[in-house]
């Protein structure tokens, strides 16, 4: 699906917002996978 062409939302703001929630989430996922890996070792 395509978004409207004449967006008023700065791309930088969207990228910043996603990074702000994405970075902690990746940190949490990494730490959990590290813990989970002990099940298979």
């Amino acid at each position, binding site marked *: 699906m395509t978004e409207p062409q004449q967006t008023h939302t700065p791309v930088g703001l969207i990228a910043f*917002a996603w990074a702000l929630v994405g970075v902690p989430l990746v940190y949490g996922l990494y730490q959990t996978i590290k813990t989970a890996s002990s099940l298979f070792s």
Partner: protein
Amino acid sequence: MAVPSFLARERIIARPGFNRWLIPPAALAVHLCIGQVYATSVYKLALQKDFGTSLTRIGIIFSIAIVMLGLSAALFGTWVDRNGPRAAMFTAACFWSAGFLIGSLGIATGQLWLLYLGYGVIGGIGLGIGYISPVSTLIKWFPDRPGLATGMAIMGFGGGALIATPLSRQLMGLYDPAYDGTAATVASGDAVAKLFVTLGLVYLVFMMFGAFIVRVPADGWRPDGFDPATVKQKALVTTDSVSAGNAIRTPQFWLLWVVLFCNVTAGIGILEQASPMIQDFFRNGGTSAVAVAAAGGFVGVLSLFNMAGRFVWSSTSDKIGRKPIYMVYLGVGLVMYVLLATVGSSAPWLFVVLAAVIISFYGGGFATIPAYLRDLFGTYQVGAVHGRLLTAWSAAGVAGPLIVNGVLDSRGTPGQLVAGDYRPALFIMVGLLAVGFVANLLVRPVAARWHEPKADPSLPTSTPETSAAR
């Protein structure tokens, strides 16, 4: 109850061309913070030692928070729908953060009741309002993919614990050098108090960010290329509106309440006992083939599947429909539970696979329910309807542990249980899933007499506030 003008719904109506992909991170900013409630086990022992009390009395803090979540979501759902997501997220941030700060004061001064009041009651209110705050907005921004949209946000709730658990360990290690994050050491009460202050302030900033970037779509907005008529063609999907007050008078609401209650209770049956359960299933002659560290890894695997299930299954429901996906959660879940009870102890890998699939259905059940409500009752007051339905979660939060702990207490002493001791509890869960499966089968479209009257096209579109006053 009026809100300050900078929080009002009218102030956050998106201008034409607003990019809706800014809304999921706003929702995630809230859900990633409030998901911390499932990371309380990380400082449970430290609090027990600091207060010199039982684990049960410390566990009450969590129980109060979950009960308050359900109650506040039910009580404030209409307020949230009327005033919009910014007011709701702002309020949730204040309550959630205040809960941590008051809780911290309780730890620092050795007063457990302040923890009950702060984290439990006040924080719990923040949990309930925060949980439902972005749901109706996401559904309105993503009418073409409501399952994906709510799945993203509610996945964040699962992700919140994944972040808070290791982060809390690291922070407590920073505040108490004697604590190394392993089971061999326990953090001091002072370190937990400082952790609470830190989390309270960090969560306040994060949630406020979500509150200030969130927008609601203008009346009549729809995504490019989206034709509401295509949605209407699907069975059970309505383009009509049912108010929250009327929704709870329909059989559909109570059937979904039973569906959610059964699905959550069954999931809690495993989550509640995950770590000791895997050790008990492979216990032979007093010792378990599964080490403590590996059991901790099993809890991590379940967390990952819980989170992934929220996103994957909820998104899948956009393709196959809400009723069929719940038939999978409850029907396939039932078969998985039977297999777990009968052949689950034959191999650790089989036990892990079965439990992981069950927990992915548990997460999926949470994430898909808002879209199911949207299908049946429309978008009009879906946040308020969702809030009322979350009382099923509170009830399951009490029933699940009661069933499991009740059965296990009657079978023997912790540390000496074996797979067979879990069987009665697992078969109770099978029965519950069967009840939920039948309830889901009975769901039919809502009768037209519950629908709100259609607005006269010659008049301005009604707002939730004016309609709710009817």
